[in-house]
């Protein structure tokens, strides 16, 4: 999706402020929002690609004017409202008027260490060989569906070189909508001077991770 989230290379944002830090404690709303996301029962089960896509669907002006963890709020209430588990009235009042059926018990505190230990992994155990090998020249496709994708706009149409092969990973475009379709994943190196008219140095490179179907042989 050609959304506001796809901001790699966008002009117009000012200097980075390295000194900015935000507090993190049990009474801070940002900390609670971040950890709420890891704790609540999600409809259909946790799917990081769907969550990311819902975040991308926040209106562009809201996206640019909301705090980072407030965008997580908008994402999560979107995920919940989409299936009817919460309503606008309930979100405004904080008072439940209905309760979803057959959702089991919520995640207990004891489950945290297992989640922390294991995390989730988009990699799948597929033995088939990848189409490209390090050193191969590839072109990123003009691929911008109205839906989830993780092909950044700044490399579309550009030629890069396969740097590293990372095994087979589920394709976000399909996984976001519940279709698990693993593909070979590569780090691909692009010369900054090919990507940007105003790139400063001749040897500098940018390496996004690209799934095989995002690429064609050059």
């Amino acid at each position, binding site marked *: *999706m050609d959304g506001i989230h*796809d901001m*790699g*290379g*966008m*002009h117009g*944002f000012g*200097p*980075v*402020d390295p000194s900015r*830090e*935000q507090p*993190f404690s049990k009474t801070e*709303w940002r*900390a*609670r*929002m971040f*950890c*709420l996301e890891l*704790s*609540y029962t999600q409809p*259909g089960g946790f799917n990081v690609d769907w969550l990311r896509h819902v*975040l991308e*669907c926040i*209106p562009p002006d809201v996206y640019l004017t909301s705090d980072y*963890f407030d965008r997580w*709020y*908008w994402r*999560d*209430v*979107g995920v919940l409202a*989409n299936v009817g588990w*919460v309503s*606008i009235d309930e*979100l405004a009042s904080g008072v*439940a008027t*209905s*309760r979803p059926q057959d959702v089991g018990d*919520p995640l*207990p*505190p004891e489950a*945290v260490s297992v989640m*922390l*230990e*294991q*995390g989730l*992994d*988009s*990699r799948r155990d597929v033995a088939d060989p990848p189409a490209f090998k390090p050193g191969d020249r590839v072109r990123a496709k003009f691929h911008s569906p109205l839906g989830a994708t*993780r092909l950044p706009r*700044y490399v579309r149409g550009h030629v890069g070189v396969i740097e590293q092969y990372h095994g087979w990973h589920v394709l*976000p475009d399909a996984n976001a909508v*519940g279709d698990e379709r693993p593909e070979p994943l590569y780090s691909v190196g692009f010369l*900054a001077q090919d*990507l940007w008219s105003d790139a400063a140095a001749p040897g*500098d*490179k*940018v*390496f996004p*991770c690209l799934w095989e179907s995002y690429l064609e042989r050059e």
Partner: protein
Amino acid sequence: MKVPKETKKIMELEKELHSHLPSDPALRVKALESLLVEKGLLNSATIDRWIEVFSDEVGPKNGARVVAKAWSDEAFKKHLMADARKAVDELGFPRLEANNLVVVENTPKRHNVVVCTLCSCYPWAIMGLPPTWYRSFEYRSRVVRDPRGVLREFGLELDDDVEVRVWDSNADVRYMVLPERPPDSEGLNEAELAALVSRDAMVGTAKVTTTEQGN
């Protein structure tokens, strides 16, 4: 449960939600937590537990130990560069958001820096929560295009003959920068070395020196 997943519908829904709910995020988040608890979808103690984890148990100190060990133990470093996940497993670190860890090494002629242009992906289990600046639009938009200008804002000036490599964590691969070991650090042991390694050095926006404390 089969979840309907239509982009256009979600866009409309997000617009509607935003236009009907109050502006203060602290109030909204509080109401959301109460609501989800009431609905049987959330246990507040689980939130508290996660906050403890991210306050005390995982953070840049994990990454700093990895860096110090790589500086001190050539066999570990070789393993780390070849298969970072397995090497880090040896140290007993967890895997959340770091199952596909890749370590990129700085040298006198090559400087690495990490970003996620599409959101703010970061190797939580090894580095903790991303810094506020890492999540900023300024960093996300600019570091792929003008890395030298951004690094200058961190007080880091690179020579023209140093190649800059920017790694975009747009997939589930997570990067950690292995900084250069400071030249005057020969006598230090692993714990002393780890204390020098700052979070920013492992993202690539700082160098490690013997005069600076890690954070």
